[in-house]
């Protein structure tokens, strides 16, 4: 039954059957090797949780999380993981309120809001931010007759701030020679609900082009033009239905809505959004957390070739030491699976990018340190 469920995905079915065999032989916690560098050698030996665990948070990683849970429970029939896409803020609140075993969040715990301290109080131990899923943000558009579009950071900021209002604006045309741009007015769509995606996207624009996007990053939209639509599904559908529409959305939702995605030219030529180009952005990120707290600072201004810098690192926020050892074992088992290259390799198909191998190792080490 389980293999039938995921039969559609050949890679996953393969992974599932491999690890099903592994599952039987595995004993319990701590048996996982965290070598996880490049090879496919580590598809084995993550253990299975037995008790149900509850988690909630960001919708940006909802699809990745659903996929992880499906694959994990396919190989571990005894395990039950619930992930609720309620939004990062509520995810963190639920976690601090001891409602959930871990939280999914688009941003690390914020010291400005005193979240690490509150989380520590709830856990009885420091909480760690573990980057788990890389969610690239696509700049998705719908212009009749235009299937390939290149934008630069300042073009993005100018379009979303309303300084460029027509698709045939010379500034856009200059970057897209050979593409015949119509005179359609640009319709900007933004998320009407507060979201980590908006937060990261505005942070990107504010970093790369503070003259055109002077306001600081914000979870709700601070622009002057456009119209808001609910959730990624809403903006996706709106762009699909509107000639001249443009929006930003997590890659997975741009894919399911079959939207065209702009290539990004940060200075070293146009870069299309692929798992590799997004992964490079994470690889270039600097770690701001200490020890096993792996919160990241992304380098949006990078001019390196082949990097797609508008990415969202979505974290799982966990306790470093759980009051209840069964919870700890279950969380470890699930996250170990999620961070394994076996699972990370399948992420591209659900519209997320895998963690770069070096990071997988770090994350695995941190997961092993959970107790």
């Amino acid at each position, binding site marked *: 039954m389980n293999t039938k469920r995921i039969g559609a995905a050949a890679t996953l079915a393969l992974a599932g059957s491999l690890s099903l065999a592994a599952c039987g032989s595995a004993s319990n916690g701590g048996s996982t090797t965290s070598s996880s560098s490049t090879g496919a050698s580590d598809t084995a030996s993550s253990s299975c949780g037995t008790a149900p665990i509850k988690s909630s948070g960001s919708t940006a990683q909802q699809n990745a999380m659903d996929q992880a849970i499906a694959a994990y429970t396919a190989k571990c029939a005894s395990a039950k993981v619930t992930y609720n896409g309620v939004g990062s*803020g509520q995810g963190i609140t639920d976690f601090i309120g001891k409602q959930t075993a871990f939280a999914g969040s688009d941003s690390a715990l914020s010291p400005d809001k005193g979240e690490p301290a509150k989380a520590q109080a709830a856990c009885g131990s420091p909480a760690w931010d573990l980057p788990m899923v890389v969610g690239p943000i696509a700049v998705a558009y719908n212009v009749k007759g235009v299937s390939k579009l290149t934008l630069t950071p300042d073009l993005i900021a100018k379009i979303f701030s309303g300084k460029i209002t027509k698709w045939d604006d010379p500034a856009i045309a200059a970057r897209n020679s050979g593409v015949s741009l119509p005179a359609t007015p640009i*319709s900007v769509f933004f998320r*009407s609900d507060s*979201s980590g995606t908006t937060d990261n996207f505005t942070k990107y624009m504010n970093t790369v082009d503070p003259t055109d996007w002077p306001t600081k990053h914000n*979870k709700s939209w*601070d*622009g*002057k033009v456009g119209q808001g639509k*609910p959730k990624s599904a809403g903006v996706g559908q709106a762009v699909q239905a*509107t000639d001249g529409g443009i929006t930003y959305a997590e890659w997975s939702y741009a894919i399911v809505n079959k939207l065209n995605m702009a290539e990004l030219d940060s200075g070293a030529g146009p870069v299309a959004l692929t798992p590799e180009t997004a992964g490079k952005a994470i690889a270039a990120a600097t770690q701001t957390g200490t020890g096993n707290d792996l919160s990241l600072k992304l380098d949006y201004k990078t001019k390196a070739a082949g990097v797609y810098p508008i990415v969202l690192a979505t974290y799982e926020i966990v306790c470093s030491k759980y009051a209840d050892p069964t919870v700890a074992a279950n969380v470890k088992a699930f996250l170990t699976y999620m961070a394994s290259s076996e699972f990370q390799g399948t992420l591209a198909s659900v519209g997320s990018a895998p963690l770069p191998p070096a990071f997988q190792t770090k994350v695995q080490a941190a997961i092993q340190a959970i107790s």
Partner: protein
Amino acid sequence: MSSTGASIIDELPGPDGRRPLSGDQAGTGRLGDRIFKAAASGAGGIVVVLVVLVGAFLLITAIPALRGNTANFFTSRDFTTSPLHFGIVQLLWTTVMSSIIALVIAVPFAIAIALFLTQYAPRWLARPGAAVIDLLAAVPSIVYGLWGAYVVAPKFVPVQDAIQTVFGWVPFLKGVPSVSGGTTILFVGLILSIMILPIITAISREVFAQTPMTHKEGAIALGATKWEMIRTAVLPFGKPGVISASMLGLGRALGETIAVMLILSTIPNGAPWTWSFFNGGSTFASLIASNAPEAISDMRQMGAYIAAGLVLFVLTFVVNVIARVIIERRKAFTE
């Protein structure tokens, strides 16, 4: 005093010169009476306590945010929570207008349908007809939202364009180019009217059906046509009930959350302002719902949204005062 439930024995002196039994003392203090009265009053008490608690919760949460607010709460159209800079003009306008549009469309229909079902419809149609209208109430709001946003709105675009072309000179009906796809205040009002129609119809229907036969027969006997009978007997009898039903409907429209959130395009803070019904916007409830999941981790931010919720609370309060005045005046007038 005209309230029902009061009895003539309330005014007559009791036996043995005891003081007259009034209202709640109609029972004579038997144990069952006391218990039952206590239960009924207790339930009323629970309602009061709950509302007071909700009000207190709203106030306590809202005050810190209101203190930190850098904009004028009553005159600003912006709503930003970081930094705290928020006002309610846009929300109030959108909420009130979408609900009024809904009411203006729904109430005449509801009255007409209720009359149809109670006075006009042939017997074989009355019962199923009522069930059919009740069916509209069986559709959950999230389904109205999805249906409105994904199915109806695109089809409604030409209608709105036509209205804009013909009536564009009316200030409220000017076209707003920045809101596309038909997802306007007017459209939300239309969907809300469909949502509140069954609740107003159901109550109006029950009330009309209770018109005393003597009143109706009297009117007919005096030579009234059917319509005159309705106008002179049924409608006056049902008026307080209809108003009360409309207020229930209005309450629902004002507070409707998920459907509005799914349908209505929001507009950015800095957008040029227009009073047109073809603008987008947020209602109090939809604003709170779309932002609460992220804001709940920060009580100061949450406070800003709760402050908006508080205004909605007060708004309902005002609406109900008005409704009450209407009903009371009507009573006084009739007697």
